[in-house]
């Protein structure tokens, strides 16, 4: 008999490009898996890693990861720093909080001086 261990299906979401900033422009970066009548089980996701690709001249800024868009945005994680022209990766080795969400995960850059930021989240699908 094997040992019981934590469920861990780690899935990377799509790369979502942000050219405008602010909560009003938040967009989904990972959709909770669901397919009525087909997919078995209620799914949630735990944020495992966040990759930020800052294209100059986006400037030094921060990226918010949460749920909802515009006025309904609610942060799941503290603001993550994104530096002009650099790639940043936040994960377990940088003590990223493993926040769980039953709602689609959304993101937005706090500010952009130009350029754009690509956001990709890696999640643990639970369920």
């Amino acid at each position, binding site marked *: *008999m*094997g*040992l*019981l*261990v*934590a*469920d*861990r*299906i780690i*899935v990377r*979401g*799509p790369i979502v490009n942000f050219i405008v900033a602010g909560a009003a422009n938040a967009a*989904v970066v*990972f*959709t909770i*898996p*669901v*397919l009525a009548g*087909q*997919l*078995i089980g209620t*799914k949630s996701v735990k944020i495992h890693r966040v990759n930020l690709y800052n294209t100059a001249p986006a400037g030094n800024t921060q990226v918010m990861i949460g749920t909802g868009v515009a006025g309904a945005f609610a942060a799941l994680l503290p603001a993550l720093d994104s530096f002009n022209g650099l790639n940043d990766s936040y994960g377990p080795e940088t003590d990223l909080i493993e926040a769980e969400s039953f709602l689609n995960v959304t993101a937005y850059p706090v500010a952009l001086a130009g350029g754009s930021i690509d956001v990709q989240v890696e999640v643990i*699908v639970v369920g």
Partner: protein
Amino acid sequence: MPDLYIFKAQIGLFDPLALQGQNVCVHYVQNEYYRKVDFLEGIPPFQCINIGVVAAGTVSARTMVANLEMADGEFGLFRWYPIDDAQIRLFHPFGLAKWQLRNLQVPVDMNIVNRDPNLVTTEIAVWQNNEPAMEAVNGHAFALGAVRIIAIGYRFHTVNLEGTGKYADPSLVADLKAGKQPCTHVWASGRAIGD
């Protein structure tokens, strides 16, 4: 055999369900075939099928797992798991849902390696060319570029104890049916609810 049987759970991988010279009864749907194993070998883990691209929020076509097909007179014993994040529904044979409960058909996903590390509950047998079929359910909002399945198991070549052939042994078959001689039963298909 007393210590060789289907769905065996243990430390490590899994045992063959019969050894050289041992008797088996292969059940395929409502048929029974009394056979004697005269050769067996392990089948290392291999990718038995790539169901292919599955669009976001869709179910793939039901696809025969042709690479699990066995030669005449042979059956395979396999455990398996997917390596892409889809839920897999098994049909064995093509028209018969496997793991069908009253309200749903239980699928297998990547979590099986955590929840059932020895893959005991995925164990299936394949009799000759009666291989299973699979459907992949993609609940993600993005397409899966591939849905691949890894299988591991055993191949058994058998001789026919029934009929009038070279290895026919009617008295042994009678004893096997009466439970007077040891015989491992192998189910090589699903079974309809209430059947």
